[in-house]
């Protein structure tokens, strides 16, 4: 099967919609985009089935498209490689991507034809780059995808570019990501200098062959730099600031790019280089601490935000923090597991919020919502299930993955991080159900906070007047139209059942996902050594072989794991209870608490003033330096001075020399004669 087809289909969709899309009708443009994604999903699925049929020790499909760079003894091919890890990623991207494309055909329907085509061309281009990112078999190919998705993110955040706040948010995302990408590039260069290659397999192989002393310096630096790249792309402290603003984009974009796929690229990148990161415990420690801190910090902000999409955005940052926590404690498969389940329920939540916004004609402030439970039943039920899943209520997907992370954190001895994780879990349940209760329960609150409405600047205000208002302010609200409902229901099914592929041993499962990912997360030669005996046995037991080796440790931990599961279920339920206590039982209580902690609340509402701090510490000094020094001294004085000086000195010389050209024929004749006399004189008297 041609792996190349997987990113190629969306790319063709992009080309069609970008070139002739404006002349196509909406149904055709939407069909092209959706068909491209579904075709890509079909190819991805067949590739993964083919991959699953391969024996474990050689479970990878490699396709070299062309030799990209060949210089001296360095070569970098444009090679795509599907292994268990990227297989999971391509399924998530194409699967959830297809659903979101389908959803978008309805959600964006009020846009003019050309905008509609532009939207889908960007979305397809994004999918194409994201697939290249996860399929790339070396850092350079990954970097193409890495930058490509950054570009598409920028284009889609600023989709409503006539609105100042949207174009600003796009620029912010792009520039903040640039900081991270700079670290990423340096990391890749460091690895290249150290190992002379950029291929993931070769680097992993070479690095795992190093003695422990040799891994300390360069390798730690390289992984730290790569992690800087990950903090940018995956919105971790200190570079998370762009993600909440990215909500200026259309809501399906927030679901696809800023929740399900692109922002997980950093997690994927660490998973892809798990061997490398495993060798650098210092980096892992940093990753874990940053992850836990981000999870907690973003969770606290999420508690008080009033914009439905912003709450979800901070929730995304927080959940990404969980994934990094997992990566940092060495539980790579748990992190990838959470990435995978999170993609379902967070996409679902965003699409659900999109359905609410769509129904309300662009309203995004939850203080102006309420009572939508009966008006929007499909949206309500799917949103509720998504919230239950993210809160970690038992038997839904989020429970298994989050619990896996917390268990691994606890069992690897990071007790403080575990406590932080638990607190975050409590907050997750609370802010999600605050959202559910305020949006769907109680009475409808019409434009209670008109001022806040203006202050925030919402994605829909600028464009949706005609269409949305028509059915927005009437009392008969429309529930999600068919394509949107289809996507919501499909994702709900995923949110419920996606977790069962990673059912832990403690609950009688065999954690298939961990076994599946095993070959991608360990060093190549280690895998082959470990599985050498297993290959002699009949095929069905090959997957069980590593599990059997671990089973002793698992048995000892099973009791602890069950206990922790019970505890985190309790935490999730009490979080929901807390939300109920404050926002349903007696809404005055939340106001009372807000009153008594008004200082803290203001800080949280203003997101800890991080944007303001960055503005003062980084942006303003940078602007001042650029303005006073770089522009007026270096550029205007130095660079322009050299260029203009050269031109002026040539001009001055020419002004002198042009006096020679008098126009008088006799003067020319005289100089001719003089020259002839001089030449003759020279030969006569020399």
């Amino acid at each position: 099967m041609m792996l190349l087809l997987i990113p190629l289909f969306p790319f063709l969709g992009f080309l069609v919609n970008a070139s002739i899309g404006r002349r196509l009708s909406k149904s055709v443009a939407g069909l092209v985009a959706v068909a491209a994604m579904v075709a890509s999903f079909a190819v991805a699925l067949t590739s993964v089935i083919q991959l699953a049929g391969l024996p474990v020790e050689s479970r990878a499909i490699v396709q070299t498209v062309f030799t990209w760079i060949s210089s001296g003894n360095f070569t970098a091919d444009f090679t795509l490689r599907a292994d268990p890890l990227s297989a999971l990623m391509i399924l998530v991207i194409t699967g959830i991507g297809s659903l979101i494309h389908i959803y978008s055909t309805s959600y964006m329907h009020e846009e003019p034809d050309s905008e509609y085509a532009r939207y889908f061309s960007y979305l397809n281009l994004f999918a194409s780059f994201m697939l290249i990112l996860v399929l790339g078999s070396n850092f350079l190919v990954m970097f193409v995808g890495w930058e490509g998705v950054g570009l598409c993110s920028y284009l889609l955040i600023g989709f409503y570019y006539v609105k100042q706040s949207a174009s600003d948010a796009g620029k912010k995302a792009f520039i903040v990501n640039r900081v991270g990408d700079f670290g990423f590039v340096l990391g890749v260069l460091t690895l290249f200098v150290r190992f002379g290659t950029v291929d993931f397999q070769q680097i992993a192989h070479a690095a795992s062959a190093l003695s422990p002393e040799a891994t300390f310096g360069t390798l730690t630096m390289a992984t730290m730099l790569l992690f800087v790249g990950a903090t940018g792309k995956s919105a971790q402290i200190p570079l998370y600031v762009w993600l909440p603003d990215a909500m200026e984009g259309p809501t399906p974009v927030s679901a696809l790019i800023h929740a399900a796929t692109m922002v997980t690229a950093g997690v994927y990148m660490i998973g892809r280089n798990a061997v490398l990161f495993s060798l650098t415990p210092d980096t892992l420690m940093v990753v874990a601490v940053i992850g836990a801190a981000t999870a907690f910090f973003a969770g606290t902000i999420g508690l008080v935000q009033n914009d439905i999409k912003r709450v979800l955005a901070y929730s995304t940052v927080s959940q990404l923090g969980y994934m990094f926590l997992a990566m940092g404690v060495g539980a790579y498969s748990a992190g990838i597991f959470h990435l995978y389940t999170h993609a379902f329920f967070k996409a679902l939540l965003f699409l659900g919020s999109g359905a609410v916004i769509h129904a309300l004609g662009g309203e995004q402030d939850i203080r102006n919502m309420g009572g939508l439970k009966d008006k929007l039943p499909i949206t309500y039920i799917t949103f509720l299930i998504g919230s239950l899943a993210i809160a970690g209520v038992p038997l839904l997907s989020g429970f298994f993955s989050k619990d896996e992370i917390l268990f691994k954190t606890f069992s690897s001895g990071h007790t403080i991080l575990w406590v932080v994780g638990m607190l975050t879990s409590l907050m997750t349940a609370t802010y999600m159900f605050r959202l559910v209760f305020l949006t769907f329960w109680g009475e409808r609150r019409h434009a209670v906070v008109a001022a806040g409405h203006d202050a925030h600047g919402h994605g829909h205000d600028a464009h949706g007047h005609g269409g949305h208002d028509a059915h927005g302010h009437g009392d008969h609200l429309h529930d999600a139209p068919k394509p949107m409902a289809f996507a919501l229901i499909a994702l709900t099914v995923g949110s419920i059942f996606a977790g069962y592929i990673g059912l832990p041993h403690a609950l009688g499962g065999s954690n298939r996902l961990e076994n599946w990912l095993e070959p991608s997360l360990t060093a190549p030669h280690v895998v082959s050594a470990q599985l050498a005996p297993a290959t002699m046995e009949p095929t069905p037991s090959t997957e069980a072989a590593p599990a059997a080796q671990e089973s002793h440790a698992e048995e000892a931990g099973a009791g602890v794991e069950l206990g922790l599961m019970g505890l985190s279920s309790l935490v999730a339920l009490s979080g929901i209870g807390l939300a109920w206590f404050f926002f349903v039982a007696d809404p005055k209580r939340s106001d009372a608490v807000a009153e008594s902690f008004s200082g803290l609340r203001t800080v949280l509402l203003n997101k800890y003033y991080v944007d303001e701090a960055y503005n003062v510490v980084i942006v303003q000094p940078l602007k001042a330096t650029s303005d006073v020094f770089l522009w007026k001294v270096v550029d205007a004085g130095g660079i322009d001075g050299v260029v203009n000086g050269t031109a002026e000195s040539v001009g001055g010389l020419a002004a002198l020399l042009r006096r020679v050209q008098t126009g008088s024929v006799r003067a020319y004749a005289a100089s001719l004669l003089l020259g002839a006399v001089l030449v003759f004189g020279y030969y006569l008297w020399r």
Partner: protein
Amino acid sequence: MPSLNDYLILSAVLFTIGTAGVFVRRNLITILLSIEIMLNAVNLSFVAFGRAFGTIEGQIIVFFVMTVAAAEAAVGLAIVIALFRHRESLNPDAFTALKW
């Protein structure tokens, strides 16, 4: 029988007269005539050398010079007429437009 030296002196005198004519006269037609004098001074020295060395090349080259001089005179006079129609003047100092 004049010697080669006599011819060369005559040639140099003619050449100097021609050169002086080019520089001092203010009439384009006179200047063209002066150039003809210079050319014929050179012709004279060529034939003088040819005779003195007993070779034919000196006389051959003179024919070439005469041909070129005829062509040059035709073109030169045509330009002079065109200029005169344009400016009503034959003074070379009137034609200094081609300068900086």
